[in-house]
């Protein structure tokens, strides 16, 4: 008990994006056992247990709730990369785990590269302009073949408008980001990483869901290339879910 870092039920509810009633049910069923301190009898949660459980939950729901929430809450430190150095370190760990797992054989480098492009974009385009929490929420489950990254930054439309002021909506901005090669790079050093992402996702038959603002882009077997629709749940920043 002494070595455990305890988190209150309210904090746990915010971190997981589930209600307190759900946490009580999970405690009862053993999915996420709570710890009761003798004096107060209140429920607390072991941070390490939470970190073990989170990748086994629906990671898309986790990052979506975080990215779309009105109030900014710091994700659990295990999955939170407040700056690009921490993201780089976690990306290296992701790469190592992919290599060890052997699931993608020599293609591990493509998924690492794509994940790196998406994550690094968040820092490149929001430095000094984060609306609330800086950095990205980066979580994956290699056994389930899923990786999710989200940020609470300015989103694709706002950052692309700096090079294309004529853009008026999120859907057009996503289409441009994923399909058009942007050669006039001033005034910001915008790359063409999302074109790379699209190519790798299509060539390797991954599923991609990418959200920004009011727009939602999908590349999968059903989308017949690239499909962009209005998002049911809008987010200010960006969110990507890759199934590989």
């Amino acid at each position, binding site marked *: 008990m002494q070595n455990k870092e305890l988190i209150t039920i309210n904090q746990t509810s915010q971190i997981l994006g589930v209600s307190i009633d759900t946490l009580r049910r999970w405690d009862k069923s053993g999915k996420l056992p709570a710890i009761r301190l003798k004096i107060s009898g209140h429920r607390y949660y072991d941070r390490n247990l939470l970190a073990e459980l989170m990748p086994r939950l629906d990671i898309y729901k986790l990052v979506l709730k975080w990215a779309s929430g009105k109030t900014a809450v710091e994700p659990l430190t295990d999955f939170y990369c407040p700056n*690009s150095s921490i993201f*780089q370190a976690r*990306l*290296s760990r992701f*790469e190592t785990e992919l*290599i060890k797992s052997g699931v993608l054989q*020599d*293609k*591990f*480098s*493509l998924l*690492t*590269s794509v994940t*790196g*492009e998406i994550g*690094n974009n968040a*820092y*490149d385009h929001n430095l000094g302009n984060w609306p609330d929490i800086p950095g990205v929420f980066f979580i994956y489950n290699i056994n389930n073949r899923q990786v999710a990254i989200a940020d609470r930054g300015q989103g694709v439309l706002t950052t692309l408008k700096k090079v294309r002021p004529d853009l008026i909506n999120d859907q057009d901005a996503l289409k441009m980001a994923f399909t058009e*090669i942007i*050669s006039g790079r001033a005034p910001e*050093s915008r*790359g*063409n*990483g999302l*074109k*790379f992402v699209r*190519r*790798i996702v299509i060539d390797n038959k991954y599923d991609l869901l990418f959200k920004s603002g009011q727009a939602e882009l999908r590349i999968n077997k059903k989308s017949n290339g690239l499909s962009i629709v209005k998002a049911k749940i809008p987010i200010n920043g960006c969110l990507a879910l890759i199934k590989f």
Partner: protein
Amino acid sequence: MIIQLKKFGVTLTSRQLGKEALSAFKPSLAGAGEAEIIEVDFDGVNTFSPSWGDEFLTPLVKKYGDRFILKWSDNPSVISTLKLLEEVNKYRLNII
């Protein structure tokens, strides 16, 4: 002169780190002879991405032209990245 990219790390993905790597290597490049071939070796690199590659390779392509050579690699991320950089920047890389 051979530039071994693994000396900059094995996961080369960020624009910022690509820029810093080139900046750190510039003093070594200054020692290259006027006709010397500048060769990039990807051996030992696990992951390579367009952001890092664009910041590090593109200025060298522009500066050294035909003297700038890339050693062929079978790493899928290197192959895909170099292909994209050629399309985006409208140049041909000397890959041997």
